[in-house]
């Protein structure tokens, strides 16, 4: 075994370790990786770290942390040890996600049409109709092909036994796919020999697949669809990604003020006049899309956009109102949704979830705040969260007050011991860091998932939070054919 791995401690009694099996033997799909790293000295690793750093710096791969002065740009932390997912495990994830996304899309279609699932009392109607992401104005509006969730990024974790569980569905504007693509480029530069030893499934076609998906949902079949990306602007933390995807797809990157609606049709303003737009891959939240319909103070949107969309003159990806299904309360019903629409058992399980809106669950949550993770139903990015074991009594008390005041807005889950993966801390020592996995699912005429996804890693020792806004980093993710 490699000199780096000799001193590595897996701690199998508490966590599932991705590399080392409980008996202390490395899992077979990591053999070649361990062998290769065994040939490296510390200086070799440092040299490769330098290659990767230069690559990221030159590419300008940065994100912005809010709350710091002028939004400081930082390089996204990257760990050199890749995650290896064997093909048979990937097959389960892929099937499970196709099943899950298909069912959720049917659910959205139903919610915005006949609401059969509410009438059949599978889900209490007040949970849907009272959700802040339910857009009643869109009941009866059918997007092209009946698809609502064109781009999703489900967060998948592994429990202590190594089962893959879905933690969140992220059906609105999931980010991070540019890191997935750039991580792969960086690894190819730094570890060409190791790359050659594995049959790693390629992911480089993601931008083409995304463009194809977006073209497939064009409302207009008479001409080549004009697709644009809509970004909130350069101060958004994911601006790099918006610009990267536009560049990779060869389409225009637009801000709200670049678009104008005329006679319920959307156009870009160009130096040569107006050009018609068919599909908008929007990375702007619903609430900011159209000041005439949603937040009137929005400077990011386009006046009249929603009407153009409702008339079927432009397609938005993702559709408006998908947030109702990625509400953390509705999340707990996804297994039932799969059963209801597809008549199948879920391939990927949920994390057990207690709903504060349910009186018996509420009692349990309040009694066990110290051991649970409490989340606000509508927040994302690791904001609005209480991690019981890491919290102070005061934090618990203030959360208890908020929960009692607005039970519909809170859920709780057990503190899941996310699986751990050896990661370099300072390039001399390996430590088991918690990881998750976010595969990106595209839904046009078919469902497409590029193999792998973004493995996020909590690079703070012992931390469970992998969000980039909270100090997380990432690894390259290899789906390998044995």
């Amino acid at each position, binding site marked *: 075994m490699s000199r780096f791995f000799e001193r590595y401690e897996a701690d199998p009694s508490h966590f599932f370790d991705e590399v080392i099996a409980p008996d202390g033997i490395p899992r077979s799909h990591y053999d070649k990786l361990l062998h290769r790293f065994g040939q490296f000295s510390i200086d070799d690793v440092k040299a490769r770290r330098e290659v990767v750093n230069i690559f990221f710096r030159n590419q*300008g791969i940065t994100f912005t942390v809010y709350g710091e002065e002028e939004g400081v740009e930082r390089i996204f932390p990257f760990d050199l040890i890749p995650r290896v997912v064997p093909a048979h495990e990937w097959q389960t994830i892929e099937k499970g996600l196709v099943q899950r996304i298909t069912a959720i899309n049917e659910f959205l279609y139903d919610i915005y049409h006949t609401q059969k699932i509410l009438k059949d009392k599978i889900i209490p109607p007040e949970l849907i109709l009272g959700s802040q992401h339910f857009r009643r104005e869109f009941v009866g509006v059918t997007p092209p092909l009946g698809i609502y969730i064109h781009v999703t990024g489900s967060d998948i974790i592994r429990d202590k036994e190594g089962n893959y569980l879905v933690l969140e569905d*992220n059906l609105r504007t999931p980010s991070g796919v540019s890191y997935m693509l750039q991580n792969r480029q960086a690894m190819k530069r730094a570890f060409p020999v190791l790359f050659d030893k594995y049959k790693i499934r390629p992911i480089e076609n993601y931008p083409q697949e995304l463009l194809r998906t977006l073209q497939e949902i064009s409302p207009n079949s008479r001409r080549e669809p004009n697709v644009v990306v809509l970004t909130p602007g350069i101060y*958004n933390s994911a601006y790099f990604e918006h610009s990267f995807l536009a560049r990779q797809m060869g389409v225009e990157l637009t801000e709200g*003020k670049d678009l104008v609606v005329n006679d319920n049709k959307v156009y870009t*303003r*160009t*130096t040569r006049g*107006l050009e018609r737009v068919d599909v908008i891959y929007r990375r702007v939240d619903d609430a900011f899309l159209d000041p005439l319909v949603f937040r009137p103070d929005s400077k990011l949107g386009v006046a009249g956009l929603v009407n153009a969309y409702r008339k079927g003159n432009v397609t938005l990806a993702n559709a408006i109102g998908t947030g109702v299904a*990625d509400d953390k309360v509705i999340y707990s019903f996804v297994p039932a949704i799969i059963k209801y629409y597809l008549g199948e058992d879920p391939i990927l399980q949920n994390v057990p979830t207690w709903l504060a809106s349910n009186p018996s669950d509420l009692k349990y949550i309040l009694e066990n705040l110290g051991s649970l993770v409490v989340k606000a139903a509508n927040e994302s990015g690791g*904001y609005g969260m209480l991690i019981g074991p890491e919290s102070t009594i005061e934090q618990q008390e203030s959360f208890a007050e908020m929960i009692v005041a607005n039970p519909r807005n809170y859920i709780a889950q057990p503190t899941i011991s996310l699986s751990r993966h050896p990661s370099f801390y300072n390039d001399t020592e390996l430590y088991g860091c918690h990881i998750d996995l976010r595969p990106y699912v595209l839904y046009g005429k078919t469902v497409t998932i590029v193999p792998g996804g973004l493995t996020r890693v909590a690079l703070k020792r012992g931390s469970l939070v992998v969000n980039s806004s909270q100090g997380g980093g990432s690894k390259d993710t290899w789906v390998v054919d044995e």
Partner: protein
Amino acid sequence: MLSRVAESLFWMSRYFERAENTARFLDVNFNLLLDLNKITHIENPNYWVALILVTSDRERFNNLYSEYSAQSVTDYLVFNKNNPNSIISCIGLARENARSIIESISSEMWEQVNNLYHYLQNITPQFVHNDPYSFYKEIKNASHLFQGITDNTFSHNEGWDFIQIAKYLERSDNIARLIDVKYHMLLSEAQSQPEIVEGSEDIIQWMAVLKSCSALEAFRKVYLSKIDPDNILRFLILDRTFPRSINFSVCAAEDALWRISGSSRHRYVNNADRLIGKIEAELSYTAMEDIYAKGLHTYLEDLEQRLVKVGEQVHLTYFAYHTPDIESSDIAEALPFTGVAGGRANWSQAQQHQQQQ
């Protein structure tokens, strides 16, 4: 091309050029004072007032500083972030514009703007004080490097033409202001100290004007060593071959505008083309007598106004298509040079900070 992208290219270029010109003004002033303190009183505040006059924001300056000195004027024109035309502000704005169209420009262009931005973040007033020559040289070279990189890594199509228009409109405006202010200053001194107007100080001052346009050597090739105001003005205003003369800059801006619209000498398509064509034609047929007949100050002021109008028409023709309220008071204030909306609207950064999934 998206109007916003064209507009950002325009302002990126314009702010870069503005920073270079400010560096030139300051550099030459330092040089000038080193010479002048031999023959007249040191730290003559007039020479520092002149720089504030060139950028025409005396009022803002007076609100921030109590005196005109090397230190206060340098601080204001190089470092002060409240001065939207300081070198540090201009490069910050050029970078901001570049960042917003990073997918449209070449990565080499971005690296160059970004490098200069980071270089400026680490510069202290002490450094500039100790070695002004190196510092201003660095800024000028960075600007030249940026132009060279742009010419060699960025397609010479519409976007490149917007970069050229911005650069040359800014430059012709700056030269006009420089001449105007220097002339004004010399005139008032001549009245108070009639004995020196024909003296060596006068010649040194005019040489300084030439130097700030890197024009001294080119001038000498044309007029040998006859450094008299008449020839200098003719060279800086009417010469058609020197890249830092008004006539040359106007011609270059006109060429770029015509390439975009397909206009020609006999046929214009929009008002920007018409106005720049008119200025160019008049410059071609103007002699120094015409300028003196009108009065130099009046002539230059009129020219500046007309250049502003060209900028406004470029804005209306290409950037503001169907945009109702793009000009707001705070933006107008940020650009006393032109009075045209510049850079990016300063709206709500907060809204862009949406939570990420």
